């Protein structure tokens, strides 16, 4: 396949694609580090990167585009309800009915606590468990699949690192006001994409963490998560 053919296919793939899908697709590819695809995958350009739900979840009448949302920067990014359909948001959050999970480097958890400026990003527990199963005991593979990088669970010499898994029950995430990430959160970095997905396609949400996280005082919303040493 010649380069001109590739360009034409790319052009054809872009044509007719809604601007929000085009921009989201670009973000997913860029941050998911899939930009080095070979020519055979060019045909999939408009189909693979943006989760189907998100492709259809952007409000048709919103003047916000993904580029504008991201470009607004912290702390000015708009509320997701301004550009995402209410049904989409509701369905997205329903994916957390089985609870939420995230991983910490224990060293960082010890030093800085479970939240970042009062919030933490979390993932649906059921989907995390599926990914762990798919990783088949391979820590580097798991790190990549979770978008954490291949050296999140092991060091440069492949020695396992001390990782803590935090699990939040449905009641805890409701108490924590689970919501669609806005992109203004302390943990949102330059790879953040509007719409509630990591660049790797894993759904994410954000919730508040109480400064007394894991305290047992019901007045602050019960216990705030269960933190256990992670074994792969």
């Amino acid at each position: 396949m010649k380069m001109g053919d590739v360009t034409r296919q790319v052009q054809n793939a872009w044509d007719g694609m809604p601007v929000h899908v085009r921009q989201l697709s670009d973000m997913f590819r860029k941050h998911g580090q899939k930009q080095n695809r070979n020519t055979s995958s060019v045909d999939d350009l408009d189909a693979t990167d943006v989760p189907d739900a998100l492709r259809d979840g952007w409000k048709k009448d919103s003047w916000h585009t993904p580029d504008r949302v991201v470009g607004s920067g912290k702390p000015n990014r708009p509320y997701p309800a301004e550009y995402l359909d209410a049904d989409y948001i509701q369905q997205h959050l329903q994916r957390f009915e089985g609870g939420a999970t995230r991983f910490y480097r224990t060293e960082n958890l010890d030093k800085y606590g479970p939240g970042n400026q009062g919030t933490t990003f979390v993932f649906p527990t059921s989907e995390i468990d599926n990914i762990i199963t798919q990783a088949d005991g391979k820590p580097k593979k798991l790190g990549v699949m979770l978008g954490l990088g291949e050296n999140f669970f092991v060091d440069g010499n492949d020695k396992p690192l001390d990782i803590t898994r935090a699990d939040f029950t449905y009641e805890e995430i409701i108490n924590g006001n689970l919501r669609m990430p806005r992109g203004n959160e302390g943990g949102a970095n330059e790879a953040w994409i509007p719409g509630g997905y990591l660049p790797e396609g894993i759904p994410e949400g954000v919730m508040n963490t109480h400064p007394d996280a894991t305290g047992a005082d019901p007045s602050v919303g019960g216990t705030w998560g269960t933190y256990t040493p992670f074994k792969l």
Partner: protein
Amino acid sequence: MGHVHALQAVSGSSVSGEVRYPRRFEIFRLEALGDDAFFTDAEARNEYERGRRLAVTDAAAPPAWYVDVLHRDRFTVTFYSPHKTPVRKVEWERADGRLFRRRILDLFYPEGDPKRRVPYSHLLTLDQHWYTDGIAHVSRSSPIDEDLVVEVSAPGELQWADIPAFGEWAPLIEASAPPELGRFDLDAIDVAEGFARATIAGGEPMTDAGRWNLPASSSTVLDTVTSLTTFEPAPSLVRVIEREAAKILPIFAQGASPAESGHDPREERRRLDDLAADLAGAFEYAAGRPIAFPLDQRGDGPVAEYALTSTGTTASAESKPASSASSASRSTSGGGSTYNASCLGCWGR
């Protein structure tokens, strides 16, 4: 006087007596989880010998100590007050067929026992990182005061232990036990300072004239970057190099190669890795993204890129005023006049 109770538990029957092996151990509430919460001894032995991660605690509720066994390569012993507050954490790591005491972290609570775990960055801490070539990196960090950070040579203070056979936990626990110190009142400030000074006095000052290391903790580096980006006075511990419009924070400079300095190159690398991990954690907390620290590179790299893309935020290894982001980019990519942060971790100059 929670520490006294902790010590009593450590020196009492709980070390040599009954211990428990939680299947899942909640590290904040110090509880074993689940209906069938504990491994039997036979099950735990099997886990240990297979190199699986294993939790070991004394039989008290809450436990006074907890050992996290990670693949029989790393044994982390944490001691608690009777109210579940961590007071000391000691990490032992496999090296040359034995366990080397790699790190000791002592925690002090001048405002009293919080009766729970709080982020260590909010506390007075004394953190000792030990290296097999006899060097110790000692830092006393405080949320209200500048850090005390010193490297000393103290080969006589290195501690080694045998890798325990299953069930033989007592020697490791006893070798890790916290000294009797007042940790839970205002006097803890002076106690921590005195403990730090005594620890430093146990070694010899590093005399390698060509060697320079960052005399501040990662949180102070972060505070410095924040101060620079907001045009406020920066903490005095962190050196700031001004080069044209750029302000540069040297993180680690090495005057000579390990071969010349006589230090163990593996441990020299480990010192950099430890520092890099510490900084990455601090910057991730501040900006939502860790820094890849390419220790073998010179010139433009991810750290410099990070510095540029973070311009105007509160996290940057190479700080620039927010209003001059584009000129910062030109300055760095233009070459010649720049000295980016990533090259500061390299050997030599």
